[in-house]
């Protein structure tokens, strides 16, 4: 700014600016505080126990001081992967239909419905899973019903709004000239989508998938209700499984001492995974914003 010297109103303005700066740093400070606390509480036991045995150990028996997280890590990965297998195709299909194949009237009906999907509490999803999905799986496929399959399906549904809304944004951001050019060359709408729009919106779509992944990994309540919570490596789609999040939530209320610290450490692992995912998602989003 130019050389403005102080006078009362200008000085007031500068005070306001300073106050707002402090306020603005609240988000950053909170993030820092959270990181400090979680990492602070969880790292000591990881060091004491040994990072490798903590992460790769296959036995989680707190009463015998065995804290191997591997089954839960695998559990989270399986369940998240399953969620993506279900959520991404359905989500992308909805996004494409919403932007390319529906009239304004249809869109005005579908879009709010999907946004409503995002608002339903996770416990309600979990509940529906327990009441309807789990018995169905048990009767049709056998096994306890509380399984990787159940969790994947429910989580897949839960990440739909994330995948859909970000993909819709990316598709809508593609300049109309791309569509018009393709149609003018004689391509059908689907060919336009497949060969022109998808590649153009690729980084946004990838970002939506990564964010959906983050959402699935972080989900707690629904997985507690339907995944079975057995702390063992799942052998099949129908086996019960425990995720990192469920691990923390289930035992937190009664854990003491080293057990509690181990749960904090689980939180640290989760935190690190989410941070990595977030950074990747941000990087791909940034690339998307730079696209023409």
């Amino acid at each position, binding site marked *: *700014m*130019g*050389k*403005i*010297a102080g*006078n009362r*109103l*200008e000085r007031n303005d500068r005070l306001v600016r300073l106050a707002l700066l402090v306020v603005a740093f609240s988000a950053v400070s909170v993030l820092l505080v959270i990181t400090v606390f979680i990492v602070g509480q969880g790292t000591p036991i990881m060091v004491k126990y040994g990072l490798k045995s903590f992460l790769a150990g296959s036995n989680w028996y707190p009463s015998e001081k065995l804290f191997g997280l591997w089954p839960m890590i695998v559990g989270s990965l399986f369940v998240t992967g399953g969620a993506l297998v279900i959520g991404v195709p359905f989500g992308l299909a909805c996004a494409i239909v919403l932007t390319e194949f529906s009239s304004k009237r249809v869109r005005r009906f579908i879009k709010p419905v999907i946004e409503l999907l995002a608002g339903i509490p996770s416990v309600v999803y979990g509940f529906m899973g327990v009441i309807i999905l789990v018995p169905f799986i048990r009767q049709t496929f056998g096994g306890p019903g509380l399984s990787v399959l159940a969790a994947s399906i429910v989580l897949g549904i839960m990440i739909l709004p994330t995948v859909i809304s970000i993909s819709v944004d990316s598709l809508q951001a593609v300049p109309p000239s791309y569509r018009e050019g393709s149609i003018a060359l004689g391509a059908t709408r689907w060919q336009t989508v497949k060969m022109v729009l998808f590649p153009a919106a690729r980084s946004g779509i990838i970002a939506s998938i990564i964010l959906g992944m983050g959402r699935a990994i972080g989900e707690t309540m629904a997985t507690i209700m339907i995944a079975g919570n057995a702390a063992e490596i799942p052998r099949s789609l129908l086996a019960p499984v425990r995720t990192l999040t469920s691990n923390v939530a289930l035992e937190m209320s009664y854990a003491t001492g080293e057990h509690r610290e181990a749960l904090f450490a689980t939180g640290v692992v989760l935190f690190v995974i989410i941070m990595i995912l977030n950074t990747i998602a941000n990087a791909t989003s940034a690339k998307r914003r730079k696209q023409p």
Partner: protein
Amino acid sequence: MSGVAIEVRGFGQSFGGVRKLAGLDLDVMRNEILGIIGPARSGKSTFLCALNRLNDLVRGSRPEGTIRIDGRDIYGPEVDVVELRRKLGMVFATPVPLPRSIFENVAFGARRAGIRSREELEVIVRDSLEKGGLWDEVKDRLGTSGLKLSGGQQQRLCVARILAVKPEFILLDEPTSGLDPISTMKIEDSLRKLKKDYTIILVTNNTKQAARVADRTAFFLSGRLVEIGPTAKIFTAPDDQRTDDYLRGRFG
């Protein structure tokens, strides 16, 4: 009361290294209407925004030289910029009524200055709207939204709005460029009446408007002042060939 109201000496302006104005020397006389003409990008609007220091809001703004208003350098250390901007009211090319009632639009500046009593505000609003040439058309509907007025009425509302804070100068940046001829005429009429109490600087792309309204006219080209003088002289026998070329439409 006449005499020099604004003294510009050696004034230049750049933004982040890009130069927009250079070596400006001119005087603005009190109670005159000074027209500023010139092709696009000649620095006319930048000059106007330098007068009320609106340029300060742009990042990397670097002014040089002096601009004296009432004898004081407006870029000097003791200057109250907020007060300066009140003194030099500005009307922009696109009318921007605030999304509130006509009354509130005009009263906005007065309220900011601390005037609270409804009666005082009503007097100010009526006075400003009359001077702006809008009173008769809106006196029965002061409560309706300013957005509902026509383009020409909105612009006159903007004039009334700045009159409400009792400026000394009125700066207008292509105020009628988007308006129909009748609204344009009404605004030009208002300016003629206002010149009695205010000093007016009018930037316009429309040379004929300057010919109709301005007492003196200045011709800007590429950030420099080419020529300034009585309007009649500029339009019939300018000193500089470039002025002549521009007015005859040989470029523009």
